[in-house]
């Protein structure tokens, strides 16, 4: 959605339910569903898809120095209130499409379902633990013209299982 023509009046929305609350995929800022414009809510999924096909799908958001600095766990005061789900980040020199294929491969190996939109993916396991199935969100950003950053976050499920997943499945292929 980098094309200005498509940006006017358009708010890219994908809705799903998490933690008994309606969320949008752009939910990093924890927007409530009420903050979305009426226009976007009336747009159907297929219309969204059609629009997306006309734009360059795999243009990741570009990171500047302050974005990177704010990755620091030390800036995340949520540690005062909860255990904090760590995000792991990896740098990759390959194309976005390559990274996405690798992640899909991993998901296949462990039989996780994949939901993806642009540079974001959501991998969900089927094995129910006490805290629900392991759910992992990934997002790809552009760091420099030749480098991408892949951010991996646990969105649900057991912490130990998440760490095992990262160590066993992700780290071995991290060099992408």
């Amino acid at each position, binding site marked *: 959605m980098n094309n200005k023509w498509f940006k006017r009046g358009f708010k890219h929305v994908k809705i799903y339910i998490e933690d008994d609350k309606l969320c949008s995929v752009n939910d*990093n800022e924890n927007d409530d569903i009420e903050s979305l414009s009426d226009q976007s809510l009336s747009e159907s999924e297929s219309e969204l898809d059609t629009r997306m096909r006309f734009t360059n799908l795999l243009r990741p958001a570009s990171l*500047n120095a302050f974005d990177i*600095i704010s990755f620091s*766990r030390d800036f995340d005061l949520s*540690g005062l*209130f909860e255990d904090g789900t760590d995000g792991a980040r990896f740098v990759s020199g390959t194309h976005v499409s390559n990274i996405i294929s690798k992640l899909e491969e991993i998901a296949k190996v462990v039989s996780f379902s994949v939901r993806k939109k642009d540079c974001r993916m959501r991998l969900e396991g089927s094995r129910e633990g006490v805290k629900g199935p392991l759910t992992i969100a990934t997002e790809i950003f552009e*760091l420099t*013209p030749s*480098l991408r950053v892949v951010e991996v976050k646990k969105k649900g499920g057991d912490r130990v299982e998440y760490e095992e997943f990262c160590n066993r499945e992700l780290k071995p292929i991290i060099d992408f």
Partner: protein
Amino acid sequence: MGCFSSKARRKFPGHEDPVLLASQTAFSVSEVEALFELYKSISASVIDDGLINKEEFQLALFKNRKRENLFANRIFYLFDVDRKGFIDFGDFVRSLNVFHPNAPQEDKINFTFKLYDLDGTGYIERQEVKQMLIALLCESELKLTDDSIEIILDKTFLEADVDQDGKINKSEWHNFVDRNPSLMKIMTLPYLRDITTTFPSFVFHSEVDEIAT
């Protein structure tokens, strides 16, 4: 309703009237009291003196008090409003208030400007940004070459440093944040909107109720 137990005041030199704090911030009285519960446990974790020192702050944030680093220092420095060397309850509540979802955007932007202006010159210099980038890279799994770091700095300053004087002044910072609102993500803790119900681990203990009985 405006008074509180003098026992609390004696043990916690930094304690302030919850009603007063509530009137100065986006928190309700019961939320301030919930914050007091949190404050009590943090301030007692290393030295039980009713005040939060740097070690206790780091411990609360990262569960690891040995982790002395640039960012932890900056946040502590800004929370310690009068440079006393410790954070009292008033500091705690007023500083956390800036992170409240309802706090003015202006306050959040000003906070980040002070945060990143490491030497307090009133400008965010390229060298400071580089220092913070490197500090971040040290603590994370991200590995970048010197060249990549320079490219990222170039890109950032090209956009942010409008008058190209090698540093970002306050108004340039405001404009930059307007164009990149995701930079303010770290300045809002949605948890703060509903502390009293979000943290069941608190034993919610209303001083007001205590006095009534």
